[in-house]
C-alpha cells in the first residue's frame, strides 16, 4: 500500500510540474499562447502561425546560469519591443508572441533549447544570445533549419565559417570583436597609454576574440605587448592576484581585460589590492552595473559601450529601466533587434524563409537606439557601426567620445 501511495504521489508531483510548464522553454507572460497550428516543417512555421493571428518568435537566452544577468537584460529589452509593437497593432495586424528559452549558460542546453524552438514550437526567428560560447554551440545545428538567429555574439567565428562565408542563419547586431578590439586599442593609444598587460579568459570565445584585434591595432601603432604580460586564465581560476602579479610588477600603463562583469569585478578588486594605479581598459561588460557591483571608485576603468547616454532619448529610456535591468546596453540591443525583426517581417513576410533571410542580410541604415545599423551580407555583422568609449567619475559613467567602427 505504501509503495502504491509513493508511486501515486510521485506521479502527481510529476504531472503538477509538467502542468506548471516544466518544458525546456520558459515562456514570458505574453507567450503562453500556443501556435495556432502545427506546420509540417519548421520552414513553414511562419505562414502557418500567421493563420492564427499570431507571429511566434523565440528568445534564446541565459536566463539562469553564470551570464543570466546579460540574457535577462536582452530578454527584457526584446519583450519591451514586443509589447510596444503589439500596442501599436502588431505586425501586419498579427500579434507578436515571444517564447523565451533558457540556455542555462550551458552549450548542450542551448542546442536542445534551439532545436525545441525550431522543431516543436516552430518559431519564425530567434533573438539570439549575447554570449559567444552559446552562439558558437548552435551555429552548426542552425544550418539544418531555415530559422534566422538575430544575436549579438561579437566573436566573428559565430557568424563565419572557416572558409569566410557566413552561416546562413547566424547574425550579429552589434560591432564585431574585430571592430571593438580596434576601437579600444585606438582609444588607449590616443590617450597616451604605451605599455600594456593583458588578462583574458582563454576558455571564453568573447574574451579570446577580443585579444588579437586589440594587439594587432597596437602593433599597427608601433606598440608590442610583452608576451609574458599576456596572461590567460580559465574558468576554474579564481586567484586573480597571482595572475596579475607579473603585470602589476611590470608597472604597465594599462591592463586590458576583455572579460565578463563578474570576473571584471574580481579582477579590478585584485588589481587594487595589489596597489595597481594604472588604467584598466575593459570591454562592454564594464558598463553599468559593473560600477555598482564593484562598489568602489572605478575612475581608472575605461570601457566600450553600444549606447550614448548623452543622447536624451537613450538616457531617458536607460533611466526608466536601470533599476530593473542589470546590463542596460543589452536591454537596448534586445529592443533594437526585435524592431529590426519587425521591419524585416513586414518587408519579406513569413511565407518564404529565403526572403526573410535576404531581408535580414540587407538591413541598411536602420536607426536604432544602439546606433545606425547596416548588415554586411558577406559577414552577417554590422559594418562601420560606431561605438562609444566611457570611463567613470568615481562611480558615475562619463562618455568620452564616439568612435567609428
Amino acid at each position, binding site marked *: 500500500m505504501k509503495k502504491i501511495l509513493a508511486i501515486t504521489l510521485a506521479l502527481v508531483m510529476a504531472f503538477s510540474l509538467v502542468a506548471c510548464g516544466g518544458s525546456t522553454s520558459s515562456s514570458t507572460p505574453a507567450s503562453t499562447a500556443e501556435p495556432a497550428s502545427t506546420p509540417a516543417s519548421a520552414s513553414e512555421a511562419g505562414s502557418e502561425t500567421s493563420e492564427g493571428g499570431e507571429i511566434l518568435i523565440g528568445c534564446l537566452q541565459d536566463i539562469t546560469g553564470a551570464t543570466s544577468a546579460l540574457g*535577462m537584460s536582452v530578454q527584457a529589452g526584446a519583450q519591451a519591443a514586443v509589447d510596444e509593437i503589439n500596442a501599436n497593432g502588431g505586425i501586419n495586424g498579427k500579434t507578436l508572441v515571444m517564447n523565451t528559452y533558457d540556455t542555462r549558460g550551458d552549450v548542450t542546453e542551448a542546442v536542445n533549447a534551439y532545436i525545441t524552438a525550431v522543431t516543436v514550437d516552430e518559431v519564425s526567428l530567434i533573438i539570439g544570445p549575447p554570449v559567444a560560447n552559446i552562439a558558437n554551440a548552435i551555429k552548426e545545428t542552425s544550418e539544418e533549419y531555415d530559422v534566422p538567429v538575430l544575436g549579438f555574439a561579437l566573436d566573428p567565428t559565430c557568424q563565419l565559417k572557416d572558409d569566410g562565408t557566413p552561416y546562413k542563419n547566424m547574425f550579429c547586431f552589434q560591432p564585431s570583436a574585430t571592430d571593438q578590439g580596434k576601437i579600444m586599442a585606438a582609444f588607449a593609444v590616443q590617450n597616451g597609454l604605451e605599455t600594456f598587460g593583458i588578462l583574458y579568459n582563454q576558455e571564453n570565445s568573447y574574451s579570446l576574440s577580443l585579444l588579437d584585434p586589440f594587439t594587432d591595432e597596437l602593433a599597427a601603432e608601433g606598440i608590442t605587448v610583452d608576451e609574458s604580460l599576456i596572461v*590567460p586564465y580559465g574558468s576554474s581560476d579564481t*586567484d586573480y592576484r597571482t595572475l596579475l*602579479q607579473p603585470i602589476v610588477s611590470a608597472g604597465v600603463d594599462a591592463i586590458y581585460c576583455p572579460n565578463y562583469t563578474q570576473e571584471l569585478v574580481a579582477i579590478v578588486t585584485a588589481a587594487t*589590492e595589489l596597489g595597481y594605479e594604472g588604467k584598466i581598459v575593459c570591454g562592454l561588460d564594464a558598463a553599468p552595473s559593473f560600477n555598482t557591483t564593484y562598489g*568602489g571608485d572605478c575612475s581608472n576603468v575605461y570601457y566600450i559601450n553600444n549606447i550614448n547616454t548623452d543622447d536624451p532619448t537613450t538616457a531617458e529610456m536607460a533611466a526608466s529601466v536601470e533599476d530593473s535591468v542589470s546590463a542596460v546596453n543589452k536591454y537596448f540591443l534586445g529592443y533594437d533587434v526585435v524592431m529590426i525583426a519587425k521591419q524585416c517581417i513586414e518587408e519579406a513576410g513569413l511565407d518564404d524563409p529565403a526572403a526573410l533571410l535576404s531581408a535580414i542580410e540587407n538591413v541598411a541604415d536602420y536607426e536604432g537606439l544602439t546606433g545606425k545599423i547596416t548588415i554586411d551580407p558577406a559577414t552577417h555583422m554590422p559594418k562601420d557601426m560606431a561605438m562609444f568609449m566611457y570611463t567613470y567619475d568615481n562611480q558615475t559613467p562619463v562618455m568620452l567620445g564616439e568612435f567609428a567602427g
Partner: protein
Amino acid sequence: MSLQILLNGLATGSIYALIATGFALIFNVLKFSNFSHGATMTAAAFAAYFLVSANGAGLAATLAVAGIAGAAIALFGEFVGFRRITLNHSSSTYFFVSSITLGTLYEGLVTVKVGSNFYNFPRFFTNPTINLGDFVISTSDIMMFTISMVALIILAYVIQKTRLGRALRAVSFDRDTAQLMGIDSTRIIQLTFVISGVLAGIAGVFLGIKYTLYPTLGSLVVKGFIASVIGGLGSLTGAVIGAVLLGVVETILLSVLGSGYSTIATFAIMLVFLLLRPQGIAGSNVQEKA
C-alpha cells in the same frame, strides 16, 4: 619564490580550510561527504547580503547572520535530507543522492532569486590593502585568515575540551553505542550540522568578498573536499593542513606554470600524494559511506 605569492596562497588556503572543516565535520559523524555544503555556503552568503549588508550593516553583522542562516539551512537539510536515512541505517547511496539533491535544490532557489543581477558585498574596509615593506596584503585577506583561524580554534576547543565535544566524538566513533550510553545521537548530529552550517556561512561571506556573489559560488566546495581528502577524511586537523597546503601549492603552480598547466599539475601532485599516502596527512583511513 616571492613572499607575495606565499601570502596569496595562505589567504586562499584559509578559505579552503573553512570549507574543508565543515565538510570534515559531517564526514566525521555520519561518514558521508555532504555535497550540499557548497550550496549552503552560497545560500547563507546571499541571505546575509540581503538581510543585513545590503542595508548598510558591517562585516560582523554580516558574518553573524550568515552563520545563523547557514546553521538554519544545514539544520533544515539534516531534517529533510538525512534524518530518516540515518535512523533507518539506509544504504550509503541514499546519503550521496540526498546531499546532491539538496545542493541542487538550494542552488536552484538562489538562482531563481538572484539570477537577474550581479551582487557584491559592500566594501567593509576603508583601506583595501596594507603595505608591509615591498609586500601588499589585502585587508580582507588578513581579516579572513584571522577569523578563519579563530573559528577553527574555537571549534577545536569545543570538540576536545567540552562535554558536547566528547559526545560528538563518541557519536562519530560509534553512533549506536553512544546512544546506548545515554547520548542523544540525533541531537548531536543536529549540532554537528549547525556547526558545519555556521562554518559554511562564514566561508560563503569570505568567498563572496573575494570573488563576488553568484549562484554557483559554492562550486568551490570541491576544493574543500580535495583538501579534506588530502588531510585525511574525517580529521579536522588534517583538513586544515590539507587546505592550507592546497592553497599554497595551487598559488605557487599558478605563478610558475600559469593557468591550465597549474590545474593539471595541482591534481597530478595530489594524485601522487594519495598514491603514496592514501590515508591522507592525518593518517586516519576511514571507509567512506558515499
